[in-house]
């Protein structure tokens, strides 16, 4: 059985990352449907792929 989240004490390493999290992006995502969030992820993956392709071209 998987324990409850409350069982986990705060991890100081994770806590150190929290001030740097861009909350504006999270707030924007929460306004979307689940499908829209997955479609955004697909679009971001395609964009990253294009950037990598362009980067490979620069190395030649």
């Amino acid at each position, binding site marked *: *059985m*998987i*324990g*409850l*989240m409350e069982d*986990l004490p705060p*991890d100081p*390493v*994770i*806590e150190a*990352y*929290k001030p*740097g*999290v*861009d*909350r504006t*992006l*999270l*707030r*924007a*995502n*929460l306004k979307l*449907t*689940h*499908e829209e*969030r*997955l*479609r*955004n*992820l*697909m679009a*971001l*993956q*395609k964009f*990253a*792929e294009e950037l990598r392709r362009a980067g490979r071209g620069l190395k030649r």
Partner: protein
Amino acid sequence: MSVDFVRFFDALAGAGVEYILIGGAAANVHGSARLTQDVDVVYRRSKENVAKLVGALSPFHPYLRGAPPGLPFLWDAETIWRGLNFTLISELGNFDVLGEIVGGGGYEALLPCTVEIEAFGHRLRCIDLPTLIKVKRAAGRPKDFEAIAELELLLKGALDES
């Protein structure tokens, strides 16, 4: 390589595969803004479900991701049954099919810790946010630290403007 989520979920739903969406794509479902390059699912380890999983994804020619070219690999039920977790590349993009995950176990153990969501015309089972945090913490990968911080903020609703 990007993942074609639409065709991936269509294929699994069409074959009636029992699975749970986990990993970075599940994090996105819960509101994460981070990029992940693959899709991870935990599949039910039954002979019937493994056969369905294999049949659903066969048309897209899954192959071991990162394996040397030419390494023999047969995507069939026997291979999946003898193995457990597979990291694959296919015509649909990169995906991982996992029989068990650290900190979460297999399909049956995870099932009570899932939510049903609607996407691409299907009802999908997705790991819930507290459990996603828990399994990511259990995996202990430094690359996940920032993602976990983000997920914990989402869980606590700590997204105010201040």
